[in-house]
């Protein structure tokens, strides 16, 4: 990039950063922002267009705004059903991940007992394995347990595969918390279990929030596990990513582009709203994993 050597002459008076460098930087940032927003906005607008408008000229606004494509996507393409399924699965699996993950992490971080390190490394090693290695046996494990094509099976698998990172992150977090409060509670006759739920969990709230966000997004966006574990003839149980991908495969034949765009918008907009409200927490939650 062009840097402006003249600018270092008067470091104290640089009140206005809009030199040639500033203008170019703004241009670069603006172009990238348009590249991000553009496709999403285009999809959103596309959901109001007619097929003819979409194929006529892609860069125009819709002539009239009608919502029937949204109705079609919701009813005929079952986007509403997929959303409900996904909300149900992700709510259960994240809650269970957090419960089991924080319990395991707490015990591994704060109690010494034979086998502690072994169990800890067993969990952490799971972060280094690509899930594709386990794919075939996992399918048969779930099948033999009779959980194939069920939401319960998907939930258990989501929890199991979220545990390594959750345990790794939370046990590091529990280690940073002061020991004195928990010790005082135990002295006063508080049970270990109660100490955990009533004292340690509230103290660990910032860490728990970050990792909850991390798990919600990760599980919401999962695509591989649903297409493997809900691969039978169970369209009514599908999750949102699976459903959207399938509409796009079919769109080629039925050519309901506005319907596809409405379905995409329906999948994107709720996530966008949640993101805009919680953007600070989401950004720190997702990047917290990288700052070890």
């Amino acid at each position, binding site marked *: 990039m062009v*840097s402006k050597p003249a*600018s270092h002459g008067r*470091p*104290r008076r*640089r*009140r206005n*950063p809009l030199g040639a*460098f500033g203008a170019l930087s703004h241009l*670069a*940032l603006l172009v990238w*922002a348009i*590249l991000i*927003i553009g*496709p*999403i906005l*285009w999809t959103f607008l596309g959901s109001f267009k007619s097929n003819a408008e*979409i*194929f006529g000229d892609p860069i125009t606004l819709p002539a009239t705004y009608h919502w029937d494509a949204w109705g079609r996507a919701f009813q005929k393409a079952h986007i509403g059903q997929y959303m409900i399924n996904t909300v149900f699965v992700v709510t259960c699996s994240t809650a269970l991940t957090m419960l*089991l993950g924080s*319990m*395991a992490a707490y*015990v591994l971080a704060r109690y010494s*007992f034979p086998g502690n390190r072994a*169990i800890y490394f067993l969990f952490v090693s*799971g972060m*280094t*394995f*690509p899930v*594709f*290695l*386990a*794919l*075939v*046996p*996992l399918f048969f*494990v779930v099948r033999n347990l009779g959980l194939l094509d069920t939401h319960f099976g998907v939930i*258990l698998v989501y929890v*199991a595969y979220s*545990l*390594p990172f959750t*345990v790794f992150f939370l046990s590091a977090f529990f280690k940073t918390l002061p020991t004195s409060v928990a010790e005082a509670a135990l002295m006063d006759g508080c049970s270990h*279990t109660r100490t955990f739920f009533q004292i340690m969990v509230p103290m660990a709230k910032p860490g728990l929030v970050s990792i909850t966000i991390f798990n919600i997004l990760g599980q919401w*966006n999962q*695509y*591989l596990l649903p297409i*493997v574990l809900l691969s039978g003839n169970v369209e009514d149980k599908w999750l*949102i*990513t699976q459903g959207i*991908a399938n*509409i*796009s495969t079919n769109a080629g034949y039925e050519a309901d582009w506005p319907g596809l765009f409405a379905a*995409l918008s329906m*999948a*994107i907009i709720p*996530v966008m709203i949640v*993101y805009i409200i919680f*953007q600070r927490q989401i950004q720190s939650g997702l*990047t917290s994993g*990288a*700052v070890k």
Partner: protein
Amino acid sequence: MRHGRYRFIFGFLAAPVILYVVFVISPYIQAFYISLTNWKGISANPQFIGLENYTRLLDDEVFWAAVRHHGVLLLVMPLVTIVIALFFSFLLNLSGGQRGGQMRGIWGSKVYRVIFFLPQVLAVAIVGVLFQAIYRPDESGVINGLLGLVGIDPVGWLIAPDLALWSIIGVMVWQAVGFYVVLFSAGMSSIPKDVFEAAELDGANRSTLFFKITLPLLWDTMQVAWVYLGIAAFDAFALVQVLSVDRGGPDNSTTVLPLEIWRTAFNFSKFGYASAMGVVLFFMTITFAALTLRVTRRERIEF
């Protein structure tokens, strides 16, 4: 008391460990054995065939195409993502000059950060469908529509074998940059302000600030970024499966190992062969991560 303590430990660990061993550890271990069998078809009786699956992989053109694509992804995607993300995070955090002794970001940096990070929260499968519409080969696709306005003929972004993989890399970069902007921003904000102040007083200009000060102090974060992006380059499953023509096409020009594993197992029911590919993928990923951490190891700068 002591007895209660062990009961508590056991009670807290039992459920997560059982769940984890059943669904994660046992499949990983089984995969190594299955890769040594000729298991084909759901109800078939698998037989031990030693390394035959692996020797067959050596002659498998599609397998080598997939490995080559991982090579391209690994060389291009992390580099492009990191360069763009570094550039933007420098602009957003440090290029606004000083005010009150603080390095400032450019005007509007908060809004930019929110927008840039947005693709990160969208599911890869959904991004794939989105870009299918954007890359459409006729003028109804956004890009070709725009090119049409300036009189350029439509380009077959996803249907030209030489171009398809690059179009997919473009989407990966599109989605990843925002995450690394936020990551690098966090790294930059932890650099003490007086380091920049001292450099500015000594007459350092922006490029010196960037190359001589910011970059070396950000080394640890970049190492993490490199490992993350490298691991992403060994995945790419959802995007290629959803976005590419014929799942990995045209003519296998975009296929990747995870896609071949999935297809071999669940479309062709060749479970032994698919597991062998899984084992290869595992060793490739591990080797990459270990090598990166080893090669990029540097003395840590304490501040």
